[in-house]
C-alpha cells in the first residue's frame, strides 16, 4: 500500500524578481515501510518538497497538485485537521539541529511537548516518556540529559534529540531533512545507523546530499535537479546503473569514485531554461535537449528517468 503519493506537485514562491519554482510536477510514491532517499544539490527543492508535505511553507507559496497520505489529500485538509496529523502521523526531523531546538526549554520538555499535545498525557508522564525516547535514541544517562538544555548537548546528541522529538508520538511516516549535515564522520555514522534502525519500522522520506548515507538507509532513491525529479528507482539499480547523466555525475563526484565534479552550477529557479534543465552541464547533450523538455520515462517497473537518451 502507498503511504504517500505525490501527484503533479508544483510549488513556487512569488518574489519581486519573479516566481521561484522550487518544485515542478513532482510525482513520487512511498510505499508502506519503504524509505525513499531524495538526493540532489543544495537549493534544488528537496527541503521544499518535505515542507510541502508537512504544509509548513510560508502562506503565500503557490502550491498545486495532490499529496495523498493513506488516501487523503493533505493539500485539501483544513489547517486544523492538518495540525492533528503533524507530529502524530507525520513526523519530521528538521535540518540544522543547532537552531531547531528552543534554547530556553530543556530537551526533555521539548520532546514531551508533542506527547502532551497529541496524547493528552500529564506533564510528569510525558517527561518519563521523553526520557524513554532519549534512551531509545541511545543517549547515555537519559534521565539526567532530559533535564539539560540544548546548548549542553553536542551536535550528535542534538540530532538524536531531534529524532526523539520526531518519533515522540510514533508517527507512521517520517521526513528526515538532512539529519547528518554538520556532523563529524564518526558522529554521523552513529546517527545514520540510528536512522537505519528507525527506517526498518517506519516509512520514511530521507532528504540528503550524502549519497553514502542514502545508500545505507534507503530502499528507493529519487534524484532531484532544479525542482524536478530526474531519476527514481530502486536503490541498488540507481547506484550500480544510474541512467541520468546527473546521477552519474553525482556518483562520480564521490571520493571513492574519482572525485570528479559536475561542471557548472544548477540554473536559477526563477529563470529556468527551456528543454532539459541539465543540458548546460551535461556531457552528452544533443540538439533535441534544448528543443524539448524530457518526460519521465519508465525503463523498468522499478526504474524511471527523465532524459532524452532513453526516448
Amino acid at each position, binding site marked *: 500500500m502507498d503511504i504517500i503519493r505525490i501527484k503533479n506537485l508544483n510549488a513556487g514562491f512569488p518574489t519581486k524578481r519573479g516566481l521561484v519554482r522550487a518544485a515542478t510536477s513532482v510525482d513520487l510514491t512511498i510505499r508502506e515501510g519503504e524509505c525513499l532517499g531524495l538526493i540532489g544539490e543544495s537549493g534544488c527543492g528537496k527541503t521544499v518538497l518535505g515542507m510541502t508535505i*508537512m504544509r*509548513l511553507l510560508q*502562506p*503565500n507559496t503557490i502550491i498545486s497538485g495532490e499529496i495523498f497520505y493513506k488516501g487523503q489529500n493533505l493539500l485539501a485538509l483544513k489547517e486544523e485537521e492538518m*495540525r*492533528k*496529523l*503533524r*507530529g*502524530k502521523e507525520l*513526523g*519530521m526531523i*528538521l535540518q*540544522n539541529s543547532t*537552531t*531547531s*531546538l*528552543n*534554547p*530556553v*526549554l530543556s530537551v526533555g520538555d*521539548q520532546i514531551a*511537548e*508533542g506527547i502532551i*499535545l*497529541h496524547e493528552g498525557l500529564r506533564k510528569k508522564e510525558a517527561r518519563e516518556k521523553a526520557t524513554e525516547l532519549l534512551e531509545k535514541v541511545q543517549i547515555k544517562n537519559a534521565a539526567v540529559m532530559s533535564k539539560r538544555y540544548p546548548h549542553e548537548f553536542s551536535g550528535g546528541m542534538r540530532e538524536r534529540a*531531534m529524532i526523539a*522529538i*520526531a518519533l*515522540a508520538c510514533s508517527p507512521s511516516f517520517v521526513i528526515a531533512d538532512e539529519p547528518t549535515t554538520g556532523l563529524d564522520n564518526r558522529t554521523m555514522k552513529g546517527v545514520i545507523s540510528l536512522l537505519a534502525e528507525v527506517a526498518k519500522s517506519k516509512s520514511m522520506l530521507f532528504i540528503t546530499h550524502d549519497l553514502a548515507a542514502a545508500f545505507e538507509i534507503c530502499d528507493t532513491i529519487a534524484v532531484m535537479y532544479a525542482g524536478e525529479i530526474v531519476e527514481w528507482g530502486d536503490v541498488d539499480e540507481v547506484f550500480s546503473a544510474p541512467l541520468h547523466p546527473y546521477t552519474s555525475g553525482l556518483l562520480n563526484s564521490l571520493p571513492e569514485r574519482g572525485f570528479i565534479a559536475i561542471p557548472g552550477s544548477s540554473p536559477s529557479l526563477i529563470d529556468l531554461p527551456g528543454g532539459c534543465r541539465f543540458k548546460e552541464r551535461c556531457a552528452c547533450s544533443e540538439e533535441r535537449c534544448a528543443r524539448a523538455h524530457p518526460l519521465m520515462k519508465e525503463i523498468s517497473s522499478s526504474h524511471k528517468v527523465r532524459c532524452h537518451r532513453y526516448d
Partner: protein
Amino acid sequence: MSKKNLAMRVSIAIFAIYLLIALFAPLLTPYDPFIIAGGIYEEPSPEHLLGTNDLAQDIFSQLIYGTRATLLLGFTGAILSVSIGTAIGIVSGYYGGRVDEFITRTLDIVMTIPTFPLLLVMMMFFTPGIYVTGILMGLLGSARGVRVIRSQVLSIAQMNFITGVKVMGASDLYVMAKHVLPNLLSLVTVQFVFSAQHFMVMGIGLGFLGLGDSNVIDWGQMIDRAYQNGGVINGLWWWLIPPGMAVTFLSLSLALFGYSMEDEINPRMKLTRI
C-alpha cells in the same frame, strides 16, 4: 564581580529599600500623614524629622506614604502597558503580513498623539483616582512597547525551532505562548522596568501640576504644595528637597537596573544606545 553586575546589585538594593518602605509605611511613620501633627511650618526636630507643612502635617510621614502612591502608579501603568504591548507585539510579529501591516500602521497613527498632554487633558476633565490614572497611563503608553516586542518577535518567528514546534502539530497560539513568549522574557522585563520608571516620573509630574489624586499623598503633590505655600520662598529645604531626592533615587535605581539588564541580554546594545 563585574562592573555592570555591581550596578545591577546596587540598583536592586535601592529599589528593595523603596519597596520595603512602601509596604511598611504605617510602621515607619510617626504620624498619620493627613492629620494635624503639631504647629505649622515647624523646622526639623526630633518630633518632626522633616518639620511640618502649612497644614501642620508631618512631612516625614508624608514622604514615606508618598512612596506607595508613586510605586502603585508606576506598576499599574507598567503592568498594563507591558501586557498590552507584549500581546499585540507578539501577534503582529508572529503573523506578519497584513496583520502586521495593519497593527504597525495603526501604531504609527497612535504614536503621533502626544501621551503626556493627552493625559493632562484627561486628568483635568475626569479627575480620576490613582488606579484609573495608572490604567490611562498604561493604555496610552503601550504603543512604544509594541514596536520593541514586535521587532524581536519578527526574528524569533523566523527561527528554526518555531518550525520545529509546528512540525509537532502545535497551534499558533501554543507556539506564541510557550515558545515565543519565554524567549522574550528578558526583553519584557527591561520594558517593564523602563515603563515603570517612566510612569512614576510622569505621575510625579501630574502631582506637581496639581492634577494628582487628592486622596493620596505623592511626592509631586508635596513639591507642588511646597511651591504654592511658601516652602520655596522661605527656603524650607526640608520640605522641598526630600521628595525630590526620593524621586531621583528611585528613578535612578530603575534606570540603572534596566540598563544593566539590557546589557546582560544583548551586549551590543551598549554600542547602539545613544
